[in-house]
């Protein structure tokens, strides 16, 4: 098992091991436990709905860990919880989006260098390009990373973004998590040609498909793309080939459209189990390691679960906040009317 050069992800907890694989493992395991907690919260009626990232932990942790948190900026969709975790985003604020406390979440996306949760498939991808062009103009050396799915690759915005970035040589990495399903539509009915990475050549940029369940492979590919972008080499596509192990969301019913055998087959490819086994084989981890990770991960998942469950609902008047920076009299009037009629 090769070791990445460095992992500029979240600073390790004081008592955490320091090898990248150890960090990856702990992040993935924490994400998994938190994901499980979130599914449970939905069942308990605390979350109205939740989109699980189960199976995609390696794709998210590996890619996010490659970012420089001082300079780079990630643009997520609605399924990048493990990426948020890796980047040190306030996870209670992140989960607030799933509790429907505020659509974008309640963390500060600018300070976190991790955009708000965004539900428009493909919609945030051009933002990454604009951010990257701006960074390049300023010469500050940061890179943007745009997360999107196999389904999103069908949207016009994703194409416009790739072409735009190619023309400008913008420092952006298009990180496709190809989990082989876009809700109920399988890859072969979604992506003509079957590969998002293969689109790169048509834009004159490098594109690579990596095993998305191999966290180090994803890390390496993303780091390479970022390094190239940072050096003025322009954009690239990294396609992490993985599998959406859970239903699309807690409202979904996979029984209607996919074969449970496929799910079982991919269960053997679980990215966390794979890394764990490889670490054992390589002598990088023993029972004590796994036990201590488990303790910390569980504590963290439970802390976040409890905090998001306990988070106060937004004040009703929050509805009128942040519509504008420079408020309008008309909106103030509506707010006064609301105060009289609704409070």
């Amino acid at each position, binding site marked *: 098992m090769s070791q990445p050069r460095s992992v500029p992800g979240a600073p390790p907890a004081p008592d955490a091991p320091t090898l990248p694989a150890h960090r990856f493992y702990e992040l993935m395991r924490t994400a998994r436990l938190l994901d499980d907690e979130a599914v449970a919260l939905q069942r308990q009626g605390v979350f*109205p*709905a939740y989109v699980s990232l189960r199976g995609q932990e390696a794709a998210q942790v590996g890619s996010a860990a490659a970012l420089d948190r001082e300079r780079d900026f990630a643009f997520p969709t*609605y399924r990048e919880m493990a990426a948020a975790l890796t980047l040190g985003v306030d996870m209670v604020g992140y989960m607030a989006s799933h*509790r*429907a*406390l*505020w*659509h*974008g979440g309640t963390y500060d996306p600018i300070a976190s260098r991790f955009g708000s949760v965004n*539900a*428009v*498939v*493909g919609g945030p991808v051009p933002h990454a390009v604009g951010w990257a062009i701006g960074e390049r103009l300023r010469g500050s050396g940061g890179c943007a990373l745009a997360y999107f799915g196999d*389904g*999103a690759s*069908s*949207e*016009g*915005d994703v194409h416009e973004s790739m072409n735009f970035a190619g023309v400008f040589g913008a420092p952006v990495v298009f990180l496709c998590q190809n989990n082989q399903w*876009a*809700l*109920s*539509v399988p890859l*072969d*009915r*979604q*992506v*003509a040609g079957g590969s998002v990475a293969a689109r790169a050549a048509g834009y004159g940029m490098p594109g690579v498909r990596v095993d998305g369940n191999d966290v180090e492979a994803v890390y390496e590919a993303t780091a390479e793309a970022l390094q190239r972008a940072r050096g003025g080499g322009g954009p690239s596509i990294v396609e992490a080939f993985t599998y959406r192990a859970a239903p699309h969301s807690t*409202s979904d*019913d996979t029984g*209607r*459209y996919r074969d449970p055998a496929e799910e079982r087959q991919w269960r053997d490819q679980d990215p966390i189990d794979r890394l764990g086994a490889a670490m054992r084989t390589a002598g990088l981890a023993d029972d004590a390691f796994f036990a201590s990770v488990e303790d910390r991960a569980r504590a963290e998942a439970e802390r976040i679960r409890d905090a998001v469950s306990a988070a106060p*609902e*937004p004040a*009703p008047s*929050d*509805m*009128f906040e942040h*519509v504008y920076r420079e408020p309008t009299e*008309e*909106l103030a009037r*509506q*707010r006064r009317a*609301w105060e009289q*009629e*609704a409070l």
Partner: protein
Amino acid sequence: MTELALRPDPEERREGPAAPPTPVSMQQAINLALARALEEDDTTLVFGEDVGPLGGVFRVTDGLQRRFGDHRVFDTPLAESAIVGVAVGLAMNGWRPVPELQFDGFAYPAVDQIVNQMARMHYRTRGAAPMPITLRLPSFGGIQAPEHHGESLEALFAHVPGLKVVVPADPGEAYRLLLQSVRADDPVVFMEPKARYWDRAPIGATEPADPIGTARVVRPGRHATLIAWGSMVHRCLQVAELAAEDGVHLEVLDLRWLKPIDTATLAESVRRTRRAVVVHEAPLTAGLGGEVAALVGEHAFSSLAAPVERVAGYDVPYPAGPLERQYLPSVDRILFAVQRTLEFQRA
């Protein structure tokens, strides 16, 4: 590259539509209308994101692919603009497309194809290109959904020449209005109020539909007219019920066709009641309530005893779950407006 290979099972095809259970949900009513449309005209096609094996995120197209085959009912890539653009091309080739866009907020990427192409192709071609498209759009709020899943685009569509726009308020209406829209030879935007998908009622599948562009009085009254569409019809009926307890008799008008608007019925009602409150979920400013107020002003000016009241969503982006209740017109807010219109004194 995969093929449109799957053909309908001939056994299932022969069956005809299941006898409508009574009562049925709006979801099922739309499903039955789609099945009937697919059955009665071989050129009808149903497609969109996840409408096939999944049966749509609201199960509105449940079972249709199995019954009619995946050449008549099919999943598309995740590309709203192309879904509408493909519908335009299919229509030019003699088909009768019934595409679905999965959620209201995801109709925005298709606005160019809707406005610049679907709505104008018949005009641009001087009538040569048929354009009998029915664009189904699960719409409006009330289900505490994530961002973009609770939008009200009716004012946008109603402003576009060449489109017709309709919103059913109950299962029977949904059944009749959808069949009517599919059979119509003009493009129709069919906005389904998500919050009513689970309402159950007998659909009266054999009742004839009223002409396109006609409103309906769902509750007669004499003290003021409440004008609404979709879910807000129900809210207005609740209000009317409450007001009746106080001896105030409110007429509730389900506008339903938002383009063309039934000005005659609207004007007749308000001329009689002399007061009007229009209620919609969309933000107040430049919402369709302005159009309704203007029409009332134009056609019932002398009868009007008070300004037309508008009760609408606030001019804020659709808020998250717990705030939705505050955002949508509530019974209380409508009652306040009724009170204002009843108590109005000319200055």
